[in-house]
């Protein structure tokens, strides 16, 4: 009892109430510092292959000799199809597959996104494993066009050649599907959706032939023309849609086969020159986090990962001495490894940050950083909740005015612990003897009497309804830009963006002004505190939950939102102006715009890609932006803006 009362007494301690902002700041600082130490050797680990069945690089590869001649011929064939219409191209690819005695089918897809039509055809062929029973399959992909919109000439030719070569082997325990999607992102998405029967038949054709459960997918991206081009390194792309990642074993196998067996160096996240320094590791990790946080498709493999099909893209980069046959051998060896799998890839990590091709940080090590950043908002929310229940004006010390009346110390202590009056407390209000003196009252608890200031026992009711409604409406408001950005015409998207950016920057000031002008009693100080409290509470909850799904997005948004837990309504005009200016800089639209500038992107393209992602890939990033980040920003900005009109 004594313990509880002393803890309750602590709650009123002013020193305790000053702690939360510092605690919040500490969480943020430790959270970010946590990220920064991850690239050090002590906090990261070297990659290793967990699944024993994979045995990367343990097989001889025989994809050489006359297969090269065939490859060159197919490369010419593919080159000849570049300017042909889609239907003719599909037909020719089908013919080549059919000559190899494979089962072939074509799938048409036709999406309309932002008033633009994305229509193309996927050609795929199934090699039925001689002793397989159609229960499992692995996929080899070469998109007709790669992410840079170049024709994947050598990549497609390589898949055709490998199909012919693989057909001769008897050892396949799984079916092999050769897939040539019309483009790198929507095509493979249409195919994999239809494969799992999760497609909308208005836009995507159902598949005529299917095989078993997909166990893995490997995409090749090798846009060299009919005369070939030797490359230097393999760029392994592994990010899936919504920041989901393939099993680390698949990635490790690809890297280990490329480097160990074939002697091809591998790079990740466009870090063409990685010298294994702290700076490069950190940069790789941050690039990986940005890519994961944005959650967009990064290649034909991305669409497979949400279906729990582990997939990577092998992309050739640079000028070196490796030729197409070494890429073919890498794929052959990789497929032999996947063919060995008895079980679905499950041994290794699904949540990791890669620092270079053979170093990673696992979820247990990095997750606290996002959690700390998320917790900072919860702490701020709790502090605001306590604050909202307190009187705004300071309690004058009655002892200084009435030195004669000495209150019983024990009763005084217990009173201070109780904000809510209990049934055994009798109130006996006294009229204050003088107006300048604070009102006091006489309390009787268990026979003990005490005279305390009225202010310290008055119950401060929290009016929850209006703040809660306002926060909910801020979240509902997010649906408007979410809808508009996903459905507006592609040509008008940049215009919409600029308009939205301007509107939402001025919106909080307008709201604050309107409330102040029409009904100033609604936005009382307590209501404003509660608005910020609810909004931060929700933000903290969402970000903590998001951290377990998409760590990077949670960190990125968490960092962008950090000021929200520190801004307060101030009576000082200058402080308000500074706070508002900072918030204006950190509003979602500005952050997107500045981020685009810094990363060298094209805003219009990004907006179209986002809309495409929403409709085709099932991208959730904009939901997080407009329904988590944007409402929190609006709520806190309104709180700050209301200070201007006092």
């Amino acid at each position, binding site marked *: 009892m004594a313990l509880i009362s002393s803890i309750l007494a602590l709650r009123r301690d002013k020193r305790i109430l000053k702690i939360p902002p510092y605690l919040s700041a500490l969480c943020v600082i430790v959270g970010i510092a946590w990220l920064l130490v991850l690239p050090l050797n002590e906090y990261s680990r070297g990659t290793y292959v967990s699944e024993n069945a994979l045995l990367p690089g343990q097989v001889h590869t025989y994809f050489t*000799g*006359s297969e090269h001649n065939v490859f060159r011929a197919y490369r010419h064939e593919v080159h000849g199809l570049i300017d042909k219409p889609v239907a003719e191209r599909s037909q020719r690819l089908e013919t080549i597959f059919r000559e190899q005695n494979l089962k072939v089918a074509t799938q048409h897809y036709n999406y309309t996104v932002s008033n633009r039509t994305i229509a193309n055809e996927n050609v795929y062929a199934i090699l039925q494993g001689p002793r397989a029973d159609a229960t499992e399959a692995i996929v080899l992909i070469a998109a007709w066009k790669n992410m840079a919109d170049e024709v994947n000439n050598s990549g497609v030719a390589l898949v055709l050649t490998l199909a012919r070569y693989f057909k*001769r082997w008897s050892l396949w325990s799984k079916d092999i599907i050769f897939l040539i999607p019309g483009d790198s992102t929507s095509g493979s998405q249409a195919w994999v959706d239809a494969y799992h029967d999760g497609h909308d038949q208005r836009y995507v054709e159902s598949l005529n032939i299917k095989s078993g459960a997909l166990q893995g997918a490997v995409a090749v991206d090798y846009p060299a023309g009919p005369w070939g081009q030797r490359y230097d390194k393999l760029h392994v792309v592994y990010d899936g849609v919504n920041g989901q990642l393939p099993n680390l074993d698949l990635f490790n196998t690809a890297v280990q086969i490329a480097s160990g067996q074939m002697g091809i160096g591998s790079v990740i996240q466009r870090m063409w020159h990685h010298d294994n320094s702290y700076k490069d590791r950190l940069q790789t990790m941050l690039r990986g986090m940005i890519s994961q946080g944005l959650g967009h498709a990064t290649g034909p493999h991305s669409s497979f990962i949400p279906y729990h099909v582990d997939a990577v893209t092998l992309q050739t980069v640079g000028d070196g001495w490796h030729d197409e046959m070494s890429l073919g051998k890498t794929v052959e060896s990789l497929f032999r490894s996947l063919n060995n799998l008895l079980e679905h890839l499950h041994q290794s990590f699904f949540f990791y940050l890669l620092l270079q091709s053979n170093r990673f940080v696992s979820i247990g090590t990095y997750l606290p950083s996002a959690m700390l950043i998320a917790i900072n908002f919860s702490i701020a929310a709790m502090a605001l909740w306590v604050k909202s229940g307190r009187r705004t004006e300071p309690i004058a010390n009655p002892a200084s005015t009435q030195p004669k009346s000495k209150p019983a110390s024990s009763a005084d202590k217990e009173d201070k612990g109780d904000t809510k009056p209990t049934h055994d407390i009798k109130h006996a209000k006294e009229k204050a003897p003088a107006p300048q003196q604070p009102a006091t009252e006489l309390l009787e608890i268990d026979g003990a009497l005490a005279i305390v200031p009225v202010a310290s026992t008055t119950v401060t009711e929290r009016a929850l309804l209006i703040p809660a409604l306002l926060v909910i409406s801020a979240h509902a408001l997010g649906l408007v830009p979410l809808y508009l950005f996903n459905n507006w015409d592609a040509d008008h998207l940049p215009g919409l963006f600029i308009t939205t950016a301007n509107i939402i920057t001025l919106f909080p000031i307008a709201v604050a002004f309107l409330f102040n002008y029409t009904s100033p009693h609604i936005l009382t100080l307590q209501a404003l505190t509660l608005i910020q409290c609810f909004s931060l509470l929700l933000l903290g909850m969402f970000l903590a939950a998001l951290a377990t799904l998409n760590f990077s997005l949670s960190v990125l948004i968490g960092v962008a939102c950090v000021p929200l837990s520190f801004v307060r309504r101030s009576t000082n005009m200058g402080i308000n102006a500074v706070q508002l200016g900072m918030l204006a800089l950190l509003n979602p639209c500005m952050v997107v715009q500045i981020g685009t500038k810094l990363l060298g992107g094209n805003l219009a393209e990004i907006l179209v890609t986002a809309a495409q992602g929403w409709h085709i890939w099932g991208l959730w990033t904009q939901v997080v932006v407009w329904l988590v980040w944007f409402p929190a920003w609006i709520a806190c900005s309104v709180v700050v803006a209301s200070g201007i009109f006092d």
Partner: protein
Amino acid sequence: MLSSLCLVLLNALVISVAAGSDYHEQLLLRPLPQNTLLASFNFRSNESAAAFEQQNFRYFPRSFGQILQHAHAKELHLRFNVGRWDAENWGQRPRNGAREGGTGVELWAWVEADTEDEAFARWLTLTNALSGLFCASLNFIDATKTIRPVMTFAPEGQHANSSNLHLLHGTLPHEVVCTENLTPFLKLLPCKGKAGISSLLDGHKLFDASFQTMAIDVRPICGQGDASCFLEMEQTVDMVLDIARSKRPRDNPIPRPLPIDQLECDTSKLYNAHDTCYPLNKGTDPAWTLEEVFGKPLRGACPLTEQSGDEVNTVCINTPPERTVEVRTTGQFAESKLASDTVRCYKLPTGAHFDLVLPEQKMSTGLVRPDPQIFAARSINGHGQERGSTQSIIRNPSTTEAVEIVYLESLPWFMKPYLHTLRARVDTTYESPIKETYYRPAVDRKRGTHLELRMVIPPSSTLTLTYDFEKAILRYTEYPPDANRGFDVAPAVIRILSPQSGDNRGVYVRTTSLLLPLPTPDFSMPYNVIILTSTVMALGFGNIFNLLVRRFVGIDEAPALGAGGLKGMLLSKITRLRGLLGKA
């Protein structure tokens, strides 16, 4: 352009007219498109019912016969299957699918018993005995994998007392069929793979085939009117060999790229050069010989076969008449031509090797391959750990005739179908194709789901059958060692009721099996928990044990052993020893 020739039904060749005790074997070869070859082996041994009852076995294998007698199995069908029949390219299934099973092992039998429980006990006896005989995990066919089909299977034999016969059916879709199953299969034959066509059956080639099925069928046959019955045992092997793959020598089986000078190029391509070669599709039938394809020579006829009559022709090949077929043997053989010369049959020499040699040849005519009556495919849709749906697509290619089928699903208990989600749609009509439903729901850990549907598919229509199911969570001990692979779901069996085939065996089509991923716990977790618990236990135990056995004495009570060094240590040891001895 291949002009069509005469159509020969494979089953027309396998004439089942026999009497008394005899043995007969036949091999039918049939080149299929895409350089593949269908080889259908058929071994038939008869034993009169009287001799069988008295355990007087002549051609009928004793080990097998005694099992049947012990388990009171009156009719038995056992199947071992690997691979898939590619109906689109290869046409109708061999023997109308009646001698074919689903992937893995499939067994069904009519057991004589007075009650259902007795029938099931005898069924367990049968599966356990067969498991030992065939080196297959047939003993894993327990109550959860056994169903009692109602419409799908009909007895092939003539049974005198059919009222107390019980049909039981079980499948093992995950069973991998391999040479350990072939050896006992061959041992049941009178010539045991030493002579006759069974000498061609070699595990390396048989199990490298694109499709292969081994079947054993036992049925009683009674003559019309008279009471003389005999028991027929038919052993069949159907396999589809990839000729190019089978011809690879055993000492060099790796399909290395051809040497550049052996690669045949399409020189009409503009880019054709010394280093660029578009592979030429010659469109010729490849060359092969029996010995090359099967990896073993055919060692003449089995001397136990009939030497006269209709059934002396042991090896038959079904090709267009223009195809050159040379016989290479040192012994006496006889050739006869049937069915407008599209079937050439040979009577094998006894005691001498026999080989057929087919050179590479450009063909102008081809054989008409009979189209299958239906095409069926089944797949799992959806993803995730909780639920999914199954979709079966059955297509009737006939433009004139409707097809009536019975569709049988035998699902494991942990795959729980929602029958209210069962939808059968035909794309050409709104009428429901389901005419009759038999459903026996699963009981957890006791029995699986059994679903039979009688359906009619109108001409040139596609039937889509879907139902949703929920995945159960198993107890951790119920997972197999490779839990993350998923669980195999037995193929659906489709029996075509009409149009009927000529014989009484029925027409069957089986879909492929399915892989059902179930929610799988992280099995390293119990391991971690065990380690953690053990550590805590060890710490706790260590402390308590230490307190219990240690004797606490005051420092002044302890003998003056304070002096360290060797002497002190020795002294303390001695004191301790004394203490121990003194206590004892």
